[in-house]
C-alpha cells in the first residue's frame, strides 16, 4: 500500500500547489537554519578520538598558587600547561602507561632538493608516545622510540602534506632533512590525520591548526627551540635558556594514557603526592591543587565550543520549532480540506489506520522535499557562516555527506511529528458525514 499512498500523496500535493509550497518552505527554512548551526555545533563539539577519549588525560597542577592575582571566581581554575621542571618530573616518574610532553614551535627547514626553497613550518616537539597514544596513522615508517627519546635522537616525522610537498608523496623514510640548520633523519610519514577539534593543543588554532613536522622533545630542548604558543610566568626567570627551563613559567602541555579506572586513581594519587612533595620542598607554598581531565572533560573545561555557536544552535532549533508549528497549521488546513475524500474512503472500507498511513505518507513526502530544500539552504547558510566566523572556526562549516542524511532525517521526523495532529483530525472524520451532508 505504500506505493499507493505515495502516489496519492503526490496527487494531493499537486492539487493545492500554494499550500504545498508553503509547507515545504516552512520545513525547508527550519531545516536550513537548524542544520546550518547543527553542522557547526557538531564539528565543534564532536569527540575527536572517540575510541580513546576516556583513556587520555591531561594532568594539571597549580604552579601559581592562590596568590596568583586571579579574580576570585577563577581562583579554582588551573593553568593548562606545566613548567619544564614539572614536565620532566612527570616524564621521569613513568606513572602512566604512555605519556607525552609537548609544545609547538616554528622551525626553518631546508629541503635537500634544491628546487625547493627553505621554508618555515609549524612543528611539534613531543615524546615518541604521542603517536601510539593518539592512534596517529602512518603512511611510511613509524614513530621514534623511548630509546630515541632518551638518546635525544635527531629524527623527524613528517605529515603527509609536507612529505607531498618535499618528496612528491614518495617514501622519504631514511632521507635527510635540514631542520634549523642541522641534519635530521626522516623516520616516519603520517597518513591523513586531522582530529577536530585538535584536542591535544586547544588554543589559538583549535580547529584549523596543523602541525607539519614532529621531532623528539628532548632534541628540541637541546636545540633550544622556543615555544610558538603561550608562555606564562610567575616570578622572575633566570638568564638564558637554562634560566627559562628552571623558571616557574608554564609552556608545556602534558598528556597521559591511563587504560583502567585503577590506573586513573593511581595517577591521581601520584599527582597529589607530587604536589605535596613540591610543597614540602618549599617550591609551592600552598596545599596540593591538581586535576586530571579526560578528552571530553578537557574540551569542555577549555570551552572549545564557542558560546556564540551554542546560543545560535539553540536559536536555530527554536526557529525550526516555529516552522514546524506553521507546518502543522498548513497541514491541518490541507488535510481538513480533504475530509470529503476521507469520508468516502472510510465508507468504502478504509480503516482509521489506513487513513493514518495515507496522511503520514503525505506528511513524509512534504518532509523529504522540505529536507532537500533545507539541505540547499544549509549549504547557503554555511557559506554565509564562513564569511562571518573567525578563520579558525570556518573549518567547522564543512558540509559532509552524513550531514545530508541527518538533514533529511531531521526533516522527516519533524514533519511526521507535525503531521500527527492533522492526521489524527483526519482519522476522526466520520464516514457518514458525506451522506449526512447531502
Amino acid at each position, binding site marked *: 500500500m505504500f506505493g499507493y499512498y505515495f502516489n496519492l500523496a503526490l496527487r494531493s500535493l499537486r492539487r493545492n500547489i500554494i499550500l504545498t509550497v508553503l509547507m515545504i518552505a516552512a520545513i525547508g527554512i527550519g531545516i536550513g537554519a537548524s542544520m546550518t548551526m547543527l553542522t557547526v555545533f557538531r564539528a565543534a563539539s564532536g569527540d575527536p578520538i572517540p575510541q580513546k577519549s576516556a583513556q587520555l588525560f591531561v594532568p594539571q597542577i597549580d604552579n601559581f598558587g592562590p596568590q596568583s592575582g586571579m579574580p576570585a571566581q577563577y581562583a579554582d581554575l588551573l593553568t593548562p600547561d606545566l613548567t619544564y621542571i614539572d614536565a620532566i618530573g612527570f616524564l621521569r616518574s613513568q606513572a602512566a602507561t604512555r605519556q607525552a610532553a609537548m609544545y609547538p614551535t616554528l622551525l626553518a627547514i631546508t629541503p635537500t632538493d634544491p628546487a625547493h626553497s627553505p621554508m618555515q613550518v609549524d612543528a611539534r616537539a613531543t615524546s615518541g608516545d604521542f603517536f601510539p597514544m593518539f592512534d596517529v596513522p602512518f603512511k611510511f615508517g613509524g614513530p621514534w622510540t623511548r630509546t630515541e627519546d632518551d638518546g635525544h635522537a635527531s629524527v623527524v616525522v613528517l605529515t603527509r602534506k609536507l612529505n607531498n610537498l618535499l618528496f612528491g608523496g614518495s617514501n622519504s623514510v631514511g632521507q635527510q632533512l635540514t631542520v634549523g640548520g642541522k641534519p635530521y633523519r626522516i623516520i616516519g610519514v603520517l597518513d591523513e590525520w586531522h582530529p577536530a577539534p585538535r584536542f591535544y593543543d586547544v588554543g589559538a588554532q583549535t580547529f584549523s591548526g596543523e602541525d607539519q613536522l614532529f621531532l623528539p622533545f628532548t632534541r628540541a630542548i637541546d636545540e633550544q627551540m622556543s615555544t610558538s604558543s603561550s608562555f606564562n610566568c610567575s616570578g622572575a626567570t633566570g638568564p638564558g635558556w637554562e634560566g627559562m627551563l628552571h623558571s616557574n613559567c608554564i609552556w608545556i602541555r602534558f598528556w597521559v594514557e591511563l587504560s583502567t579506572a585503577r590506573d586513573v586513581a593511581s595517577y591521581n594519587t601520584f599527582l597529589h603526592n607530587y604536589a605535596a612533595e613540591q610543597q614540602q620542598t618549599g617550591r609551592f607554598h600552598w596545599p596540593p591543587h591538581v586535576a586530571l581531565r579526560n578528552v571530553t572533560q578537557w574540551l569542555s573545561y577549555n570551552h572549545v565550543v564557542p558560546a556564540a555557536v551554542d546560543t545560535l544552535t539553540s536559536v536555530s532549533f527554536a526557529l525550526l520549532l516555529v516552522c514546524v508549528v506553521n507546518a502543522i497549521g498548513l497541514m491541518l488546513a490541507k488535510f481538513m480540506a480533504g475530509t470529503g475524500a476521507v469520508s468516502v474512503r472510510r465508507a468504502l472500507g478504509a480503516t482509521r489506520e489506513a487513513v493514518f498511513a495515507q496522511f503520514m505518507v503525505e506528511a513524509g513526502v512534504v518532509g523529504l522535499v522540505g529536507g532537500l530544500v533545507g539541505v540547499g539552504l544549509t549549504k547557503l547558510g554555511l557559506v554565509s557562516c564562513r564569511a562571518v566566523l573567525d578563520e579558525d572556526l570556518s573549518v567547522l562549516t564543512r558540509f559532509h555527506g552524513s550531514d545530508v542524511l541527518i538533514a533529511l532525517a531531521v526533516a522527516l521526523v519533524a514533519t511526521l511529528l507535525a503531521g500527527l495532529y492533522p492526521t489524527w483530525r483526519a482519522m476522526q472524520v466520520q464516514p457518514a458525514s458525506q451522506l449526512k451532508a*447531502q
Partner: protein
Amino acid sequence: MLKMTGLSKVYRTEVVETYALRELTLEVQEGEFVAVMGPSGSGKTTFLTIAGLLEELSAGEYWLDGVDTRGLTDRQRSRLRNEKIGFVFQSFNLISDLTVHENIDVPLRYRGLPASERRRRIDAVLERVGLTSRARHYASEMSGGQQQRVAIARALVGEPRLLLADEPTGNLDTQMARGVMELLEDIHLRGATIVMVTHDPALAARAQRQVYISDGQIMALGMPPHLVDGGHASQLATQPSEPV
C-alpha cells in the same frame, strides 16, 4: 440479509436528546429490492448510515448477513463495509483527483487484492456499466449520469451482498435517472440485495417493496405482514404519497 430489531439512534448534546430512529424493526431478505421513503428529517439517511455501518446504533440489534454488528471494532466494521456493502450516493462522491479506473479501484485496494485481480474486476464492471472507454477520464470530464454509473461500478466491483443507494437519481435529469434506475434493476435481477432511499414515488414503485419512515419509525407500504412493526401499517393509508 439485513435484520434490525428495536433499533434506536439518539443524538445527544448537553441540553437535548434527539431520536433519529426509534425502536425501528425491519428485515430485508436476500435478493430483495426495497425502497425507503419518508419526509425530510424522518430518519431515512440515518437508517441508511446505520445499515451501512457508517454510524453506530444507540440501542437495539442489527444483524448484517448473519453478523451481529454490535460492539464491532472500527477495523471489523470497515472490513464488513468493504466486503459486504456497496454504496451509491446522491452526489456520486467520486474522488476528484482520481480517474474512473482509480475511483473504482479504491474499495479493492483496501481489500488487498493483487493488481491483476483488481484490473480484471474493474474491466468487467466498467463493461457492465458501459464505460469501458472512459476508464482514464476524470469525474469532471463526465456527465452526471456517467458519474453515477461510475459510482455504481465502484459499489459493485467488490461484489457486495448488499447495495445501499441514497437518492441515486436525485441529481440527475429524467433521462439519466431512467438509465441509472434500469442499471439498478439489472443489478437486482442478477441477485443483488438493494436498499434504496428515494423521494420519488415513481422510482420507489419500481422496487419490490416500499418502506415508509416517519419520525424515526417504520411504516410500511406493500410490506409482508410478518415484517411490519405491528400497529403502524394502518397509519400509512393517511400518509401523503409524495412525502418530501
